[in-house]
C-alpha cells in the first residue's frame, strides 16, 4: 500500500477541478488505475467499487468515499487491529460477520457492510468501552476540538454511557521530555505511538506497561524519552494523551489558521502546515508527501518555530556606535551601508566585497541577493556554503537521484554525515526502505552512525582515507577485507546501474578534497550511478541554484556562459570570485574589506574558527542580515533584521532539487523585512534598481532568464503542481509555457493519508464549522504518484545546464601519525545553532560538547570516561571532557561541530582550514 510503485506513466498530475477531494477520497480513484496491474471489485454497502488487490479494506473504502472510523490504523505503519473501532461486516461462508477493516485485505467479490445494525452496535460498544476510563477532560485537553475520539464518539457513538463507577486515576500530566507531556488517563491504547517508536523511528522510548484496565502507556524507567522524532507521536496520537509542551494551552483548534509550507530547518524539505493563532505560530504539523517525508517531521523542524518569537529576535536595524549595536531606522542603516560600501568599491573595486551565507533565504530572496551582489555590487565572491559542503558545480552537475530513488536503489552507497543528526527524516525514509524491502545499504563512514545497524555493510575508513576505500570498492585497489569485497561485487555489477550514491561531508575536520575525489571516482567508474547530495542547512540547494556560489549564475549556469543574464542584468563580474575559505583568507589579509553575512555565522559554522575570527576582525564593514544574533554578532557593524520562516512566502529547494512552497502565516516582528526587500532597498541606496516590487517579479524574471526555472511561473507555483513540489527542470511544457506531462518523479504527492494525523482545521471543518477552506487537501491522483521513477537526466531538458568534470588527479593520502587521533567533527541535531538555542523546548536537549574516543584510547591515556583532558591541534589547545564510545574506531575522535554554549569550544577551534585531516593529541591535565 505504501510501497512506491515504479510507474513509467506520468499518470497526469493534472489538477482535478479545484481538487476538493476530501481526504483523497473521490478524486483519486480515476487516475490511479494505470498504476495497478489489475483490479478487484468489492461490494461496499451494496455498491460495486474497484480496489487494488491486497489493499486493506479500510483504505479501499476510504478511496471509494466511505469513511470507516478507526483509531489504531495508520497507513504508514503496520496494522495491529488494536482498537476494533473499524469493525465492519464481511460476508464469509457462514454469512456476514464482524471483521476489523484495517486488518482485512480486499478480495475479489468481497461483500462488505459498513452501516448495518450489527456494525452500529459494535461501534457503540467499542466507543462506550473506550470511554469507560476516559477522563473527559475535553475543555482543558489540547486535543479538544480536533479529537478523533470526540469526533467519532459524536458520529458513531452511543451518546450516553452506562458507566457510573469511579474512573481510573493517574497523576498527570507527566513531562516525559522537554517536548512532550503524557497523560496516561486519556490513552486509549491504540498502539500508534509505540508502533511509531519501534517500527518507524527505531528508538524504543514509549511502550505499554501493566495489564487489563491497568494497561498504561509510559516511558522506560531506565531510559530517557529521547528521540529526534517524538513530536510525531503527538501528531498521530488520536487522543490528548501525548501533547506537545510548545503547544500546550496555546490555542484551540477553532482559532487556528494554517498555511502549507516546507520545513527549512535542514535540506530535506519536509512538507508541513504552519498553524498560527492570534498572529503567533503555535504548531507545525507534518503533511504526507509520498516523495519526501511520508508525513513525519523531526522534532527540530517541528518545534524550532519557537525561535521566531524568542526575546533575542532581531526586530530593528542596528548600527554599531561606541562599540555597541544601537537601534536605528532603516534609512540610517541602509545609507550607512551604502556609503561605506561605495567607499570600498571606489578604492578597491568589487573584488573587496564578499557575501557569505544564504541558506536561510527563500529561493526568491536568494535570487534578489545574487542579483544585488553580481549585477549591482559586481562581486562574484559569494558563497552560500561555509566550506562545509560540496562544490556547487558538483552538486548541480552530477546525475541526480531523488530520495525515492535512494530508497528504491539496487545498492545505496551512503557516504556522508549521520543522517539522523543532519537530515533526520531521511533516516526514517532509509530505515523504512530497509525494513520494508531490504534496501541494500552500504555505508562508508569514519565512525558508527545511526545507519550502522541498518546497513548490509558498514565500512570504516580513517579520515583522509576515503578515496582508498572507494578505490577498493571500485576494484582499483585490492579489498582490505571480505566485507569490502562483497560490497564491491554488488556495487560494480552492471556498471553501477541502479546504484544511488548519497554524497555528503561526514566531517568538517577534513577538507572536501577526499569527498570530491571519491565522487569523481564513482562518477567515472559507475556511469549508471545517480547521486543524492546531502547538504547541510535548509535551503542551501536553492541558494546555489539561485547563483549564491562563486562562478555561478541563477539556474545552474556558469558565470562564464553568461547567458541571458549578461544583457538583462547589465553587466556581470569579470572573473570568478572566491569561495568561502578563500574569501575569509583574503579578508584576514585585508584584501576583502566589506562582508555581507546572509544569516551566516562564520565564527561557529566555518570549520576553522581562528581564521573566521581573524577575518571578521580584519574586515572594516561587516553587515549581517539576520533574524537572530549569533556568535559572529560581536564583529558585526550593521545588523539588518530579516523575516524568519513563516513570516514570508516563497519557495525552497531541497537536497534532491525539489522546489516546494514555503508559506507565510504571520508578519515579521518589529521592523524586520523579507530578505528580497532588503536587497531591493540596499540596491536603491546604491543607486540601482533591481526591478522587483514583489517576489512575483522575481519569479517572473527568473523564469525568463534562467533555463532551469523555465516554466516556473507564479501561476504554476500557486497551482497544485507547485504545491506538491516539483523537481527542476520542468519538462514537456506546451507552447504557452503550460505544463503538460511531467517526467516521472517530478512531482510528489501531497495527501492527507491519515485524516487523524493532520488535525486542527481539517477536523473542525469536518464538523461543518466555517474556516479557511482546508488548505491541505489531496491534490489530484496522488496515490499513484510515480515516485519510484527516476529523473532521466537531460532527456529533452533544456540544454546548457551545468555538468561536472571530475578531477583527474587523486589527492594524496595523508600519512598516519601513530601518536595522534584523527578528528571527526560533525553536526548534531541539537547543537548550538540559533534555531535550537532560541527555542525553549529544544535548547535543553542540546548535546554535551564532549570528545568521544574508543575506550582503548582512554586506557592508553590512563583516564576514566568523563575526565577533562587537554587536546592539542595545529591551531591551538583546548580542554574537553573525554568520553569512551565503542562506536568510535581506534585512532579517531569525535567532537560536535557547534557546541551548545557559545563560549564552549567546538571542533572548529581545532581545525585549520584546508588541512586534509585534523590530527589531535590528547594529554592528561596536570593534577590539581
Amino acid at each position, binding site marked *: 500500500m505504501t510501497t512506491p510503485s515504479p510507474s513509467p506513466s506520468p499518470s497526469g498530475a493534472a489538477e482535478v477541478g479545484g481538487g476538493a477531494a476530501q481526504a483523497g477520497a473521490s478524486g483519486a480513484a480515476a487516475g490511479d488505475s494505470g498504476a495497478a496491474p489489475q483490479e478487484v471489485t468489492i461490494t461496499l454497502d451494496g455498491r460495486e467499487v474497484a480496489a487494488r488487490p491486497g489493499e486493506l479494506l479500510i483504505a479501499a473504502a476510504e478511496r471509494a468515499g466511505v469513511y470507516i472510523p478507526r483509531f489504531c490504523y495508520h497507513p504508514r505503519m503496520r496494522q495491529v487491529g488494536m482498537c476494533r473501532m473499524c469493525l465492519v461486516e464481511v460476508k464469509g461462508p457462514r454469512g456476514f460477520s464482524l471483521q476489523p477493516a484495517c486488518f482485512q485485505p480486499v478480495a475479489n467479490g468481497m461483500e462488505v457492510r459498513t452501516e448495518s445494525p450489527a456494525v452500529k452496535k459494535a461501534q457503540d460498544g467499542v466507543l462506550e468501552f473506550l470511554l469507560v476510563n476516559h477522563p473527559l477532560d*475535553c475543555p482543558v485537553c489540547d486535543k479538544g476540538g480536533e479529537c478523533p475520539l470526540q469526533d467519532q464518539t459524536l458520529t458513531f457513538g452511543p451518546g450516553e454511557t452506562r458507566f457510573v463507577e469511579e474512573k481510573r486515576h493517574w497523576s498527570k500530566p507527566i513531562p516525559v521530555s522537554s517536548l512532550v507531556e503524557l497523560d496516561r488517563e486519556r490513552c486509549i491504547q491504540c498502539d500508534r505511538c509505540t508502533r511509531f517508536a519501534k517500527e518507524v523511528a527505531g528508538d524504543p522510548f514509549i511502550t505499554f506497561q501493566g495489564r487489563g484496565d491497568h494497561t498504561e502507556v509510559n516511558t522506560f524507567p531506565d531510559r530517557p524519552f529521547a528521540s529526534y522524532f517524538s513530536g510525531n507521536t503527538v501528531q498521530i496520537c488520536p487522543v490528548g494523551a501525548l501533547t506537545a509542551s510548545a503547544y500546550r*494551552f496555546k490555542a484551540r483548534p*477553532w482559532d487556528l489558521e494554517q498555511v502549507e509550507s516546507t520545513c527549512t530547518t535542514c535540506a530535506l524539505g519536509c512538507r508541513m502546515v504552519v498553524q498560527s493563532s492570534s498572529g503567533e505560530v503555535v504548531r507545525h504539523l507534518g503533511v504526507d508527501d509520498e516523495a519526501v517525508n511520508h508525513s513525519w517531521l523531526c522534532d527540530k523542524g517541528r518545534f524550532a518555530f519557537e525561535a521566531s518569537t524568542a526575546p533575542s529576535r532581531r526586530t530593528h536595524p542596528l548600527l554599531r556606535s561606541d562599540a555597541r549595536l544601537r537601534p536605528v531606522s532603516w534609512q540610517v542603516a541602509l545609507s550607512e551601508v551604502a556609503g561605506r560600501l561605495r567607499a570600498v568599491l571606489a578604492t578597491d573595486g568589487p573584488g573587496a566585497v564578499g557575501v557569505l551565507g544564504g541558506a536561510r533565504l527563500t529561493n526568491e530572496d536568494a535570487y534578489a541577493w545574487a542579483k544585488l551582489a553580481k549585477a549591482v555590487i559586481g562581486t562574484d565572491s559569494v558563497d552560500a556554503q561555509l566550506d562545509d559542503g560540496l562544490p556547487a558545480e558538483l552538486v548541480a552537475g552530477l546525475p541526480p537521484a531523488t530520495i525515492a530513488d535512494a530508497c528504491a536503489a539496487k545498492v545505496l552507497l551512503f557516504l556522508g554525515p549521520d543522517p539522523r543528526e543532519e537530515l533526520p527524516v531521511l533516516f526514517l525514509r532509509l530505515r523504512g526502505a530497509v525494513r520494508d524491502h531490504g534496501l541494500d545499504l552500504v555505508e562508508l563512514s569514519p565512525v558508527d552512525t545511526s545507519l550502522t545497524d541498518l546497513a548490509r555493510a558498514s565500512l570504516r575508513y580513517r579520515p583522509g582515507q576515503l578515496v582508498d576505500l572507494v578505490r577498493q570498492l571500485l576494484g582499483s585497489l585490492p579489498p582490505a577485507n571480505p566485507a569490502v569485497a562483497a560490497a564491491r561485487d554488488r556495487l560494480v555489477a552492471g556498471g553501477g546501474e541502479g546504484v544511488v550514491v548519497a554524497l555528503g561531508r561526514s566531517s568538517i575536520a577534513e577538507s572536501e578534497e577526499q569527498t570530491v575525489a571519491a565522487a569523481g571516482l564513482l562518477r567515472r567508474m559507475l556511469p549508471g550511478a545517480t547521486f543524492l547530495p546531502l547538504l547541510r542547512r535548509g535551503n542551501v540547494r536553492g541558494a546555489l541554484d539561485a547563483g549564491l556560489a562563486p562562478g555561478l549564475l541563477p539556474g545552474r549556469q556558469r558565470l562564464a556562459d553568461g547567458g541571458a543574464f549578461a544583457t538583462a542584468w547589465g553587466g556581470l563580474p569579470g572573473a570568478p570570485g572566491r569561495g568561502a575559505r578563500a574569501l575569509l583568507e583574503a579578508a584576514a589579509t585585508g584584501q576583502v574589506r566589506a562582508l555581507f553575512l546572509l544569516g551566516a555565522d562564520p565564527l561557529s559554522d566555518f570549520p576553522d574558527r581562528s581564521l573566521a575570527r581573524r577575518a571578521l576582525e580584519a574586515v572594516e564593514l561587516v553587515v549581517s542580515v539576520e533574524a537572530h544574533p549569533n556568535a559572529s554578532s560581536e564583529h558585526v557593524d550593521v545588523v539588518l533584521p530579516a523575516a524568519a520562516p513563516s513570516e514570508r512566502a516563497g519557495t525552497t529547494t531541497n537536497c534532491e532539487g525539489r522546489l516546494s512552497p514555503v508559506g507565510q502565516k504571520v508578519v515579521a516582528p518589529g521592523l524586520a523585512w523579507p530578505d528580497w526587500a532588503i536587497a531591493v532597498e540596499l540596491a536603491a541606496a546604491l543607486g540601482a534598481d533591481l526591478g522587483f516590487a514583489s517576489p512575483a517579479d522575481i519569479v517572473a524574471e527568473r523564469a525568463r532568464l534562467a533555463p532551469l526555472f523555465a516554466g516556473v511561473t507564479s501561476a504554476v507555483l500557486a497551482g497544485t503542481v507547485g504545491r506538491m513540489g516539483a523537481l527542476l527542470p520542468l519538462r514537456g511544457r506546451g507552447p504557452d509555457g503550460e505544463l503538460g506531462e511531467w517526467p516521472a518523479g517530478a512531482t510528489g504527492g501531497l495527501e492527507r493519508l491519515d485524516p487523524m494525523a493532520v488535525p486542527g482545521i481539517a477536523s473542525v471543518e469536518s464538523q461543518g464549522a466555517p474556516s479557511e477552506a482546508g488548505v491541505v487537501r489531496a491534490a489530484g491522483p496522488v496515490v499513484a504518484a510515480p515516485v519510484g521513477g527516476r529523473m532521466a537526466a537531460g532527456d529533452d531538458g533544456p540544454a546548457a545546464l551545468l555538468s561536472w568534470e571530475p578531477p583527474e588527479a587523486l589527492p594524496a593520502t595523508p600519512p598516519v601519525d601513530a601518536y595522534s587521533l584523527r578528528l571527526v567533527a560533525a553536526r548534531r541535531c541539537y547543537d548550538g545553532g540559533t534555531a535550537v538555542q532560541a527555542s525553549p523546548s529544544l535548547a535543553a536537549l542540546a548535546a554535551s560538547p564532549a570528545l568521544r574516543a574508543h575506550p582503548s584510547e582512554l586506557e592508553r591515556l590512563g583516564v576514566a570516561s568523563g575526565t577533562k583532558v587537554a587536546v592539542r591541534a595545529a591551531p591551538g589547545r583546548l580542554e574537553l571532557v573525554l568520553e569512551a564510545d565503542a562506536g568510535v574506531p581506534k585512532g579517531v575522535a569525535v567532537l560536535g561541530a557547534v557546541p551548545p554554549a557559545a563560549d564552549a569550544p567546538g571542533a572548529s577551534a581545532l581545525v585549520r582550514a584546508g588541512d586534509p585531516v585534523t590530527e589531535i593529541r590528547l594529554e592528561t591535565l596536570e593534577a590539581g
Partner: protein
Amino acid sequence: MGALDALKGFKVTFKQIFEPRVTSSYPDEKRPKPPRFHGRHVLNRYEDGMEKCIGCELCAGVCPADCIYVRGADNPPDHPVSPGERYGFVYEINYLRCIHCDLCVEACPTQAITESKLFEFSFTDRNDAIYTKAELVVRDDGKPQQLPWEDWREGDDLLTSGWMRATSPAGVADQEGRRHWSGELGYGSRAPERGQSGLDPAEASPSLELRKEEAAKIPVRFGGRAR
C-alpha cells in the same frame, strides 16, 4: 368643522390622562429586571476563592459576535488560579460587540461565566468597552465589581450563578432539576428552580414565584394579567 371636532382629535389624549401612569423616570427610577435577564457578565469563583474559568475558550468559540478573547495557561503549581491544569489567563469581552445572547453562558463547562442584570453601558473611551479579567471576576465576597461608570441597582447582581443556564448541564431532559453545579463564592450552592420536575419544593429556589409575581404586574394590554 366645529370646535367639537377639534376636541375629538384629543380623545386619546384625554382618555390617557385618567389611565394609570406607566412611564417611570429612568434613570432615577429603574424597573426590576426578570431573574433571567441578560446583562453584563461576571466570572465566578468557587467558595474557596478559586476561579471557575479554566480558559477552555468554549465561550469564545461559540460567541456569534466574536467578542470574547480567552487564552489558557498552565496553572502555577504553587498558586493555582483554578482547580486543574489550566486556567484562563487572559479573558476579555468587548461590549461594543456583545449581543447578550448568553450562548457563552450555555457553553461554559464550569459555569464560570454568567450574566448579571446590569445592561446600561456607556463609554467615553472604546477601550473601556473591553472588560478584562480584572473587571469581570467577582470580588472576594462574591459580588460583581462595580466599575466607576456602572450604575448598579439593588438586585442587579443577584441570581447570576450556574442555574441561570437554559440547558441542563448534560443537555438531557431527565437531568432537569438535578443539581450539577458547584458552590460559588458569595452565593454558596444554588438550588434549582421550583417547578422543575423531580424536585423537593423545600429544596427549590423561589425564583419561579418571583417570576410569577413580576409577570402578574404586566398589564393586560401588554399581554400580561394586571388590570
